[in-house]
């Protein structure tokens, strides 16, 4: 569905050239849900806007939905849907008419557009809102309306730019189910950008992690997490003075890294925390080291990002 090589975009500003995207390679197959994960300013939206023909790349080439991006942008536009980050509807317009007006630009007749729009309204929980002004819809409703508008012409490939940013938790969870159904019911390919780890984990078959305009990792969420060095084992000691002894036991585990001791807590990474735990507890007991609590943490995507870039995705977000 998408095959891009060396996509780059450099902006000329008053203070010099800004390389927003540097040589991005992408491959997305039909029927996948692929996520573009990265902090704000990483180049996600710029890459998306290049793939949707809104911006011209300063270098590189791509084939999107079977059409050459540079030589046949109109062909690309006919076969993609795009849901922009900040919304696509006019306050004073009515929900239904926005859908029909957009669909007509793809060659649909007004009658066909109306029928399709109402079908999509039902599928995305927007019943009864056809004649309402767009500014009278809730945030979640308006975002679903944006998605309906992107789907009116039934494109095989849909781009979602930060689909749930700014929504409350229920609306987010609700929207996730709708996005899954895009692939499940309609067989569409979905390419979304997000800076939410839970969203990337839940929705995406594959992830592309982008930082500073470059792809720093690619793979399924599980593959990416497996690349990070193991699970974190956290010991909370009953007696903080036993810290050094506890650390020594941890260090002795197979494949463990250097333990870190901090105010009554000792932690280290081991390849398989669950398997190491029984033996660890027996050893600590044998040395009379009393534990107040123990925790085994599987790596998160934030750990992935941290190990790849030295920064936390959450910090970059602030």
């Amino acid at each position, binding site marked *: 569905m998408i095959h891009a090589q060396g996509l780059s975009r450099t902006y000329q500003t008053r203070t010099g050239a800004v390389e927003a995207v540097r040589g991005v390679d992408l491959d997305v197959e039909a029927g996948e849900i692929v996520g573009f994960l990265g902090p704000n300013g990483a180049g996600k939206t710029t890459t998306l806007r290049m793939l949707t023909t809104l*911006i011209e790349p300063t270098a590189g080439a791509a084939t999107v939905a079977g059409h050459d991006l540079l030589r046949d942008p109109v062909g690309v536009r006919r076969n*993609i849907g795009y849901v922009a980050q900040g919304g696509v509807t006019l306050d004073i317009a009515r929900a239904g008419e926005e859908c029909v007006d957009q669909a007509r630009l793809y*060659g649909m007749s007004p009658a066909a557009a109306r029928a399709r729009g109402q079908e999509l309204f039902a599928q995305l929980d927007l019943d009864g809102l056809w004649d309402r002004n767009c500014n009278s819809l809730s945030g979640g409703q308006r975002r679903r309306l944006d998605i309906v508008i992107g789907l009116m012409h039934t494109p095989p490939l849909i781009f979602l730019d930060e689909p749930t940013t700014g929504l409350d938790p229920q609306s987010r969870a609700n929207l996730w189910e709708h996005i899954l159904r895009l692939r499940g019911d309609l067989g569409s390919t979905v390419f979304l950008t997000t800076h939410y780890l839970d969203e990337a984990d839940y929705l995406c078959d594959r992830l592309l992690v982008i930082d500073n305009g470059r792809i720093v990792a690619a793979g399924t969420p599980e593959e990416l997490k497996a690349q990070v060095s193991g699970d974190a084992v956290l010991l909370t000691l009953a007696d903080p003075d036993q810290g050094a002894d506890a650390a020594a036991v941890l260090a002795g585990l197979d494949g463990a890294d250097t333990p870190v001791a901090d105010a009554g807590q000792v932690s280290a990474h081991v390849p398989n925390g669950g398997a190491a735990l029984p033996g660890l507890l027996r050893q600590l007991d044998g040395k009379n080291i009393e534990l107040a609590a123990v925790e085994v943490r599987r790596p998160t995507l934030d750990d992935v990002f941290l190990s790849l870039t030295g920064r936390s995705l959450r910090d970059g977000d602030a």
Partner: protein
Amino acid sequence: MTTFLRDTWIIFNRSMRLSLRNPIWVVLGLIQPILYLALFGPLLKQVVSSTPGLPPGDAWQIFVPGLLVQLGIFGAAFVGFGLISEYRAGVIERQRVSPASRIALLAGRVLRDVVVLLVQAVLLTLTAIPFGLRAPVGGVVLAVVVVAGLGAAFASLSYAAALRLKSEDALAPLFNGLAVPVLLLSGILLPMSLAPLWLRRVADVNPLKHVVDGIRAFFAGDITSSAGFWGLACTVGLIAVGGWFGTMTFRRESA
């Protein structure tokens, strides 16, 4: 582009529908020219009857053309603000991501502006009749066509400026800064033929002066004069310039 006509119609249809929901703007656009008509026009009768060097025609035949040009320019110039709202709402991007012709995105909107302008121009001219305007129908029709053309040109320029600046705060001073000298040098209130030679020369560079002179000739019943010809030529030129800037801007990537 084979879809140009269809896309222009779709955009025109949408823009017209949205405008009709808020017809107040049609009335507001007319307020300024009607105020000038009612409160300034009557002062000119005295001036015209006792001043040599004026173009042919009575006070109203000289004054109303200026008002029509003022309507055509000011009315069209402010459409850019509406486009900034649409841009902020994400509508422009949504339309640019569709296969629609880029020129159609401009043309459909300009067509709507021209239709609104035609209605306003006819209303303005009709309002001038009770005040004393008498002009040949053929001349008035031609004049209204020219005003529509001016409107198309300035609406396109307004859209181009709006998309580039993307800010109401930048757009307003641009118009105000340009509009006042341009209008003063067009002989809208009083004909430039009253001006000293140096001022007349400066005004000759202004295409709008020739448009106003052309419309005055039409109102005086003189369809085939050179003033009329130059007025039409300048209007066509302005449409070409406006259309070019407008189309270029809608094609630009950051639009």
